[in-house]
């Protein structure tokens, strides 16, 4: 902590702060001072696709979380979930912007988010599935954020400085998401007989989509040192889930992975039926008013 933050009068007298804001100040730009050109030796197309994968995971899952707004059990939980969804939307924006720039075809974040079709989306199927109930929401959020945190943890050392900076920002956000979700999974798993049964059923329902998170993809294989190999994340994620499930008094489900379609899953643009509806809602405003700004 700097002296300015600690001494009340010195803090008030500082002109370096941004006075536009009535409350908090000291906002930071995660990409400030970072060279955004694609590093030498990195395949720009592969980098663009990889950023789409990570960006689409966040964009699609953020939208699913937003669909919970007005349906949460308490107002306080609603704000908590909205914050999480907003964090993920922020990650999606940075990653889609990075994808557009690496691709070099002039597509920006909005173009990529709102004017791609279903089979061009690269998100994992775990992110697109509707939560049946609150237990499924917390279970999916735990698995998603534990996995993404492990992934971003590796990406902080990525050879692409932009990806490394986005990951460094995301790690702090995802640590909180994971903590929030873990607390609820423990609360429900270790709660009443009914909450335990619902939490167990939720994990059973989600589990078939977990395997896909650790699949290595041809695009990822083209980016050594830049991308994180999903297979290497499994140990860390398993350990975290094991700890939480043990505290919650829940067993790890034993369910067969959801089948790939002709060897293809979400990463290759093959999605579940529910995804089309999500995308239609997500893109409807932008497509109804193309070129509109607000």
């Amino acid at each position, binding site marked *: 902590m700097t002296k300015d933050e600690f001494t009340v009068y010195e803090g008030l007298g500082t002109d370096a702060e941004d006075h536009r804001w009535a409350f908090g100040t000291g906002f930071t730009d995660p990409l400030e001072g970072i060279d955004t050109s694609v590093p030498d030796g990195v395949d720009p197309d592969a980098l663009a696709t990889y950023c789409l994968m990570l960006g689409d995971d966040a964009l699609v899952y953020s939208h699913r979380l937003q669909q919970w707004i007005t349906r949460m059990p308490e107002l*306080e939980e609603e704000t908590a979930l909205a914050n999480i969804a907003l964090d993920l939307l922020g990650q999606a924006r940075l990653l889609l912007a990075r994808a557009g720039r690496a691709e070099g075809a002039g597509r920006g974040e909005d173009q990529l988010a709102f004017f791609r079709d279903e089979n061009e989306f690269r998100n994992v199927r775990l992110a697109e599935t509707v939560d049946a109930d609150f237990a499924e929401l917390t279970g999916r959020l735990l698995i998603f954020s534990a996995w993404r945190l492990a992934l971003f943890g590796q990406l902080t050392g990525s050879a692409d400085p932009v990806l490394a900076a986005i990951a460094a920002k995301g790690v702090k956000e995802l640590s909180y998401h994971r903590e929030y979700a873990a607390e609820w999974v423990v609360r429900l798993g270790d709660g009443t007989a009914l909450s335990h049964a619902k939490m167990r059923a939720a994990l059973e329902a989600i589990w078939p989509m977990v395997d896909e998170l650790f699949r290595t993809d041809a695009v990822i294989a083209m980016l050594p040192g830049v991308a994180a190999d999903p297979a290497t994340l499994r140990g860390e994620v398993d350990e975290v889930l094991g700890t939480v499930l043990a505290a919650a008094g829940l067993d790890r489900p034993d369910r067969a992975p959801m089948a790939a379609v002709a060897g293809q899953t979400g990463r290759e643009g093959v999605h579940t039926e529910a995804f089309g509806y999500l995308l239609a809602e997500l893109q409807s405003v932008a497509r109804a008013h193309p070129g509109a700004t607000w």
Partner: protein
Amino acid sequence: MGEPQVRSGWPLYEVFLRGKRGLNHVHVGSLHAADPEMALHHARDLYTRRNEGVSIWVVASTDITASSPDEKDPFFAPSGDKVYRHPTFYEIPDDVPHM
């Protein structure tokens, strides 16, 4: 999505925040939570969204003992005419911080 639920009976917590520019924690509001740990999370999500805080305290509202409005005069009126209790008649040296 689940059925609409009747609002639960989660107890009330008071939230105190220390901002970047403040030396002490200031009461900023209250919220509902099942236990202190959850109250801390809710406080983070409700009251530090605009980058305001560096430290949070939460305390169950039932744990606060408050002065009663009925006792306002016996409590506070006797100090009303004792202006000499304000240390306004001293020069504060430049190198004394936090005053």
